[in-house]
Every structure is written in structure tokens, then in C-alpha cells.
């Protein structure tokens, strides 16, 4: 570290033009030494190809008929067809699955973010009795294996007569989404200086008014990220959602497992259904691209 600071001291404090010249010379030297290899892009490109191939294969299959899938092997559809998508969009037992999934996912996201907002504020601004234990306990729920909860959830929601309702799945997913939202929001809120709160109180803002008018706009991006991750984790979860539903609220992910028909597996429709489940993520991903790491790391990057 001291070596770096030395060199920093040596290079700073010179006129800007000279500094610029030194930088350029250095950059030239670096290139010559081969430190900045010309092939740096090769590794990310290969990796992205590796990631895209299976997804491409699924998309490819979704535009083929079953005969073509099982028949001649081809890298792209010879006779592209929208038949598989038509099956999904015209059969209520298929498209209802998407509606069910979206209903409970949106309910869960709304509940999670709304209850997490005040809690995250409390954790980021105050110390109170048992705060650290509570924060840790929340984390353990995010880390808890859904397999442990599947059966007790079934019994709990049966007792309340909530089996096969959207709210049951939405509440059950709060198990891991509320802690997630609290941790992410706490991470964002801790980045807002406390002086802002104090100034607002001096200016005569009441707490609710300050929170809604000043604080929420300040952490708008944090709320967006928390909502996105609640949406995503509820959307990708299957074990609990499948356990708690039978027909009326069955998620699309569970419906996908029943594509075996009398004539064997319906690969084309299965592929089309898979492609449609990828789309919500693919649409919003661009907007949260800079926060993905932060969200997955529970707001701690």
C-alpha cells in the first residue's frame, strides 16, 4: 500500500497537461508490454455463448412442430411455426397458469416491500432492544431451505382453509422475500446521510410526511431493486407454490410439468411455455442491470 501511495504522491501535483502526457506514454508502454491483451474479449464472449446456447435451443424448439423436434436434427427451425404459442394462448388451463403466477407474485411483492420499508428504516437509523438478533433472524429465513417448510406450510394453510388460493402462496413466499426486502432496503437506506432526516425534522416535517415526501423519493431506486428481487424470487420458486395449490391458483411452472399427453411428451409446447416464463426477467433486466449484484448480495455490495 505504501508503495502505491508513494507513486500517487509522485504523479499528483503536476500540471495537467504533463500528467496527461505521462498517462498516454504509460498506456503506450503497457500495450507494448502486452499487459493489455488484444484478446481480453474472448473469455466473456465464450462465456456468453455458453450461456446462450441452451436458451437458444429452447427458443429454437418452441418454433418447431413435435415431428420436427423428434425427426431430423436441425440447428434452426426448418418450417417455423407459432402453433406451440397458439396452444398456450388459447387453452385456459395453460394461460391461467401465467395469470395465477402473476397474481400471487404481485401480491407478494406489494406486501413484502410495504412491510419492509418501515422496518428497514428502523434498522438503518435506530438501535433498539434485540435489533441485531432480529436482523440475523430475518437472514436465517432467507437462507432456510423451502423443503423444510413445504409440509408444515401445507398443514398451516389447510387449517386456515387457504389452500389453493393466491394469497396463501403470496404469504408463504414472504418467508424469504420479506427478509430479502428488509436487507436490500437497509443497504440502500444506510447510504442516505442521517443529516437529511434531521434537517427535515427541524424544518417541521412530521415523520410520515418526511418519509413519504422526502425519504421515499431518495431511495426510489432501492425500492425498485427490492421490488424486482421480490418479484424474481417469487417467480422462480416452485416447491412451495406447487405444494400450496391444486387447480385454481396453480402456477405456470407447475403446469409445465404435465405436458405428457397420449402421444408422448409435447416438447414444442413445453419449450414455448419455458420461453414465456423467461420473458418477464428478460424485460426488466436492463433497468436493474447495475443493481443485480447488490440485490443478490442482500444490499451489501
Amino acid at each position, binding site marked *: 500500500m505504501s*508503495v*502505491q*501511495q508513494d*507513486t*500517487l504522491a*509522485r*504523479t499528483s501535483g503536476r500540471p495537467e497537461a504533463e500528467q496527461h502526457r505521462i*498517462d498516454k506514454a*504509460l498506456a503506450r508502454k503497457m500495450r507494448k508490454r502486452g499487459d493489455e491483451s488484444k484478446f481480453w474479449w*474472448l*473469455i*466473456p464472449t465464450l462465456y*456468453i455463448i455458453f*450461456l446462450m446456447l*441452451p*436458451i437458444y*435451443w*429452447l427458443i429454437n424448439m418452441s418454433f418447431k412442430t413435435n415431428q420436427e423436434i423428434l425427426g431430423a436434427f436441425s440447428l434452426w427451425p426448418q418450417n417455423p411455426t407459432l402453433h406451440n404459442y397458439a396452444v398456450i394462448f388459447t387453452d385456459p388451463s395453460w394461460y391461467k397458469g401465467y395469470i395465477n403466477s402473476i397474481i400471487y407474485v404481485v401480491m407478494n411483492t406489494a406486501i413484502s416491500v410495504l*412491510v*419492509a420499508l418501515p*422496518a428497514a*428504516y428502523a434498522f438503518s437509523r435506530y*438501535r*433498539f432492544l434485540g*435489533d*441485531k438478533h*432480529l*436482523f*440475523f433472524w*430475518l437472514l436465517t429465513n432467507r437462507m*432456510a431451505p*423451502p*423443503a*423444510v*417448510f*413445504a409440509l*408444515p406450510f401445507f398443514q398451516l394453510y389447510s387449517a386456515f382453509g387457504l389452500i389453493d388460493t393466491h394469497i396463501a402462496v403470496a404469504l408463504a413466499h*414472504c418467508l424469504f422475500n*420479506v427478509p430479502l426486502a428488509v436487507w436490500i432496503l437497509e443497504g440502500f437506506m444506510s447510504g442516505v446521510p442521517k443529516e437529511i432526516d434531521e434537517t427535515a425534522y427541524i424544518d417541521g416535517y412530521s415523520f410520515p410526511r418526511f418519509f413519504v415526501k422526502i425519504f421515499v423519493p431518495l431511495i426510489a431506486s432501492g425500492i425498485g431493486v427490492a421490488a424486482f428481487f421480490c418479484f424474481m424470487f417469487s417467480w422462480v*420458486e*416452485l*416447491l412451495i407454490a406447487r*405444494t400450496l395449490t391444486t387447480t385454481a391458483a396453480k402456477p405456470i*411452472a407447475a403446469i*409445465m*410439468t404435465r405436458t405428457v399427453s397420449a402421444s408422448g411428451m409435447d*416438447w414444442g409446447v*413445453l*419449450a414455448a411455455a419455458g420461453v414465456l*416464463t423467461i420473458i418477464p*426477467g428478460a424485460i426488466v*433486466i*436492463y433497468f436493474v*442491470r447495475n443493481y*443485480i*449484484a447488490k440485490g*443478490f*448480495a442482500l444490499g*451489501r*455490495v
Partner: protein
Amino acid sequence: MEKTWNNKAWFMVLPVLLLVAFSAVVPLMTVVNYSVQDTFGNNQFFWAGTDWFDEILHSERFHAALGRNLVFSFIILAIEVPLGIIIALNMPRKGWGVPVCLVLMALPLLIPWNVVGTIWQVFGRVDIGLLGRTLANLGINYNYVQNPMHAWFTVIIMDIWHWTSLVVLLCYAGLVSIPDAFYQAAKIDGASRWAVFRYIQLPKMNRVLLIAVLLRFMDSFMIYTEPFVVTGGGPGNSTTFLSIDLVKMAVGQFDLGPAAAMSIIYFLIILLLSWVFYTVMTNYDAER
């Protein structure tokens, strides 16, 4: 940040507490209940003490599932972490390449887990999948349904496909936080590429790497949906990890006692890991 002591903050935490207590504490108490009781049906329960715990802790089936899960976790960590670092180091830092890389790399993270399973189930099939067909054409008798080694290979490569991006994105977030001045200083000192990595980049990535390792370890430790869709835990029991075994026991065979005891042991392991995670985080936050 200096925090003020205020016990009224409890009121703000209360909704979270009630909601999570409803969906975590109540079910967990049910599990505890089952783990110390036995039943002969008809909803009649008898006190069984720690019998179920004894049984699980000494059962070969549990040891085998735990062992498989640990081996799986270590293999994927050993591959995903170095691979993630290498990719993150070679990602562009500015220009149009940044959003392209971020968006495409994050895509697998956002696919529903059973669709991930479906994608690889299809991709690996010899009759209709690209991977299976290619391997078959290379003369490899690839069959993940019958050959345990091939099943493991498929599950591991699927996990690498699914989660390496998480390590990449976390490391990248650590790397971009390094000020340019550090690199310039290293250039003037004539530091080698390795020295730059070892003394500038690695220390800056320390924390994100720890987060990545812990998250990957925990998530792989409770993996269920993806291997279940691809292999169903087979062939035989060769890819039956802890969660798959637990669901088989609880829902398939309805052995509530042993399943509950296993749940609690499982949960305690996770609790320990979470504590490590939490300590790492709070220690760093304290330094900040």
C-alpha cells in the same frame, strides 16, 4: 453511521415480525412437534423423545445425502469461483460492452428454477438436445438418465450455467469500485499483471468474494428444483441431495417423525452458516 437508541423503532419492525413469525415460526414449531412424537395414525401422537434424531443421525441414508450434497457444493464452488473471477477480470469497464455483458450474463439468474431444469433436461437428451447429440456424435455414450457419472456431470454443468454469473457480477461490482489511480500507480511501479491482481484487485474483491462463496454454498446446499426436474434424484439415489431426500421422506413416504428430525438438523446447519455470513457482513460494515 452513528445510530440513536430508540426502542420505539420496534413499532416499525412489528409488521415484519408478525408476518415472518406467521410464515416461519408457526411452521417451524409444527416441525419441532413432529420431531419428538410418534403416531399410529388417527391423529394420535405419542412422545418419542429424541428417537427420531437418533435414527436420522445414525442413518446411512442421511449420511449419504449429506455427503453427496457436500461433494456437490464443493465441486461447484471450486469451479464457479475461479471461473467467475477470471470472467469478471476480463469484462469491459466502459462502453457499450458493459450493459451487453451485464444483461446477457444475468439472464440465467432470472429463469424459474424448474425451467432451468427443463432447459438442461432437453439440452442433454441424446435424441433432441444439442449437448446430448453433440456428445453422441463425438462417440461418447452419454446418458444422464442411466449413468450416475453423466447425471452428476449434467447437474454440475447446469449449476455452473445457472449461477456462475452471480460470482461474476459480484466480483465485477468489487472491481469497478477500484479507483483508476491505483492502476496508474501500479503501472508506474512496473507491477506485473499478477502483482496487480494479487495486491490491488484481490484485496478489493475480498468481501464480495466471501459473500459469493457463502451465498453459493448455502443455495447449493438447499438445491431442490433443478436436479429434481433433470434427474429426479436418480439414477438410483446418485443425485438425491438433502432437500430431495427430505421431500421424498415427508411427502412421498409420509414419515413425519424422521422427516421433521431431519428438517431440524438441516435447519441447524443452515443456521450455523447464516451466522458465519452475518458475522462477515457486520464485521465489514463496522470497518466501513
